[in-house]
């Protein structure tokens, strides 16, 4: 139980360091936008791709 508390704190510190640092956040925004476009486009292609067929 103590181990999982330590790891949660480690995760919180890691997430905070990624959000509150300007340079890292700028990169993370680009990464999230690109990953969202990639994943969303795959979902769209697999489910609605037939609508684009001629």
């Amino acid at each position, binding site marked *: 139980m103590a181990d999982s508390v330590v790891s949660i704190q480690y995760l919180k510190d890691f997430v905070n360091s990624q959000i509150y640092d300007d340079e890292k956040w700028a*990169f993370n925004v*680009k*990464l999230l*936008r*690109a*990953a969202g*476009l*990639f994943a969303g*486009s*795959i979902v769209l*292609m*697999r489910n609605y*791709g*037939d609508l*684009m*067929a*001629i």
Partner: protein
Amino acid sequence: MATTVPPPAAAAKVDYLNLPCPIPFEELHREAMMSLKPDLFEGMRFDFTKMLNQKFSLNHSVLMGPTEIPSQSTETIKIPTAHYEFGSTFIDHPRLLLWGRILTDGRLNARVKCDLSENLTFKANAQLTNEPHMSHGMINFDYKGNDYRTQFQLGNGALLGASYIQSVTQHLSLGGEVFWAGQHRKSGVGYAARYNTDKMVATGQVASTGMVLLSYVQKVSEKVSLASEFMCNYLSRDVTASFGYDYILRQCRLRGKIDSNGCVAAFLEERLNMGLNFILSAELDHRKKDYKFGFGLTVGE
């Protein structure tokens, strides 16, 4: 009358000793590259190819338009330029290919591809310029096995590379590469995977240079493909994703894409007549406010 239920079809047993030969390691992402990376240009382009006989052809190309030069500031700097390129191609199908192009500024590009045997291929390419230390050359030896391919590369500047790709199942192939650049004292290793079926192709590649490249292509029909790509280099903090379409019709080929950097592009090749193609290119970078439009004509095969 009793209806007989047909027995369920037995799942096809996979013969792991008889797998298909995978595609070359360097062409892992070829479907995504063909759909998402057309030859976009800005200005006017004219290409003329003349077949002198079945094996030999000459090529004349003219390109007039602005050329971007790298600048320190965020603004793009363009200089109007005009190029004429003369080239020749010799194809002795399937064993030998010789290809050469020379530009008015003295740059020479040359390629050789020769099948030394049924499984062994020799390839060489060179880019020669007038500027000192800017010329490059590379030779490759490719060996094709039953269900694997391997390549060995040797380039100037003590560049050594090797790659290997193996079919693991009917649809999945895995590969890896290593390289060593003696001049820069750098080395790297990379791994790749490719999964393809009749309807889709998914590939992934990671390298120790910090690059991650994922792609997915959905073949919607014989004429239509949709493609998506994700490229991330966490050492240079560069991330790009793009999503595009590729329509291959009888009279034209239309490709378009949008990417996560706010750039929209389209490329149209329209067949006006036998051997006569009209091309239109557009690339709109809304973030940098850089808009490029091009038109051209291609004559000959």
